[in-house]
């Protein structure tokens, strides 16, 4: 153990923490909206909506995130001229854009299944009661289906958030200097991988521990009031 390397790794990896946090929060934010749309698509009666939604979920859940990320970041280069013509190359040449796009699509697919499960768990009786009170479809969704589905989906979503924290490490393979990227740099620079992994590992564990606590609190807050 070399104390100097540890001393040097702490600020370096701490500086990369905001990068990891940004990747996680931005992709979770957009991924959640995508997931709700995809979940509603999968539950729709129209095959024009549920078939593409199913295909999207199937593809993104059965292939590794790494290859999805490479396909978007490196693969887009093959269509550089076409993307340039429609003005999209500006985005696709940015590793940040590609990392967030692939993380968003990936978490969107996983989360949509969690939300779909939540929506399916809402009992028909409640919806009938809502209809009997004269709510329209939008009100039913907003007041009954969505809140109840979210409560049901919360534990599963907590797991997904932790998986996302771990997944962001793949962004380091497309040149983004997140905590894993900085770890790799320090490890190869000093030829000593053991000291910095204690720091990087602790940061990830701490992050996931905080998330577990927050989700636990949220679960308690929205738990069914039992008398």
């Amino acid at each position: 153990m070399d104390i100097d390397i540890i001393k040097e790794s702490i600020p370096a990896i701490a500086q990369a923490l905001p990068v990891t946090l940004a990747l996680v929060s931005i992709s979770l934010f957009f991924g959640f909206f995508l997931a709700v749309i995809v979940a509603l698509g999968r539950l729709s009666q129209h095959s024009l909506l549920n078939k593409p939604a199913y295909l999207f979920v199937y593809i993104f859940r059965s292939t590794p995130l790494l290859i999805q990320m490479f396909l978007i970041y490196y693969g887009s280069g093959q269509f550089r001229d076409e993307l340039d013509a429609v003005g999209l190359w500006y985005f696709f040449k940015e590793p940040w854009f590609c990392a967030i796009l692939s993380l968003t699509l990936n978490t969107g697919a996983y989360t949509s299944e969690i939300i779909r499960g939540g929506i399916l768990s809402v009992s028909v009786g409640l919806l009938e009661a809502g209809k009997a009170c004269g709510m329209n479809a939008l009100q039913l969704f907003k007041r009954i289906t969505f809140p109840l589905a979210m409560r049901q989906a919360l534990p599963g979503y907590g797991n997904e958030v932790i998986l996302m924290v771990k997944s962001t490490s793949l962004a380091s393979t497309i040149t983004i200097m997140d905590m894993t990227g900085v770890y790799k740099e320090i490890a190869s620079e000093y030829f000593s991988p053991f000291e910095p992994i204690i720091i990087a590992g602790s940061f990830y564990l701490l992050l996931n521990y905080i998330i577990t606590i927050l989700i636990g609190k949220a679960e308690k807050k929205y738990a069914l009031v039992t008398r």
Partner: protein
Amino acid sequence: MDLTILSWGANGWGDEFFYGTLMTISVAICSFGFGIVLAVGATTMKLSSYKSLQALANGYTTIVRGIPELLVIYLVFYGGNTLLMSVAKGVFNYSDYIELPVFLMGVVCIGLSSGAYSTEVIRGAVLAVPTGTIEAAKAVGMNTATRFRRILFPQVVRYALPGLGNVWQLTLKETSLISVIGLAEIVRIAQIGAGSEKQPFTFFLTGLILFLILASLSDKGYLSIEKWANRGVRSS
């Protein structure tokens, strides 16, 4: 998109992709198997009455499930040889250069992660076995080994299968991470091909499709295994 570069032979990448797929399958099978071995050990520790063993197993699953697999892979890649050489020097006084095969490093990393997830699945399955069946076995005079073989094991397998199916799919996808240390599996082949043929989209899409095929084949295989495991169960 020019698909002739995916043909078989010296000018195409079809055969490279084929062997890459075999490599992915072998890494996945070895890691999954190694993971099951780890999981059986960790489950035994978690369910034992020794606090220290429980803490050790809990530490393993918490740490491995809490930090990114990529970090573990870099650790083993950069540190595995150093550690092995210092152990070899300290214990056997052997000071030549030793290099771990990439395949072995990959299996160790992915197996560690796969094992942590399998532990939770197997632990849940063991706890799901009704105690009445164990008591009944004791009552008819079975010894521990017979009880394990006839009563506990078949039930644990049945309860654990759905979860282990998920772990298998996870392990299969995680093998892609080994590409960062240069093992010639699907993603690595796609990277090499993309670089030399200047057609990254074609190559990564091919890799993606290969993973899709592997995933749907696993689904099919898994369904028949589950059917087999449930063959004696009454269904409504």
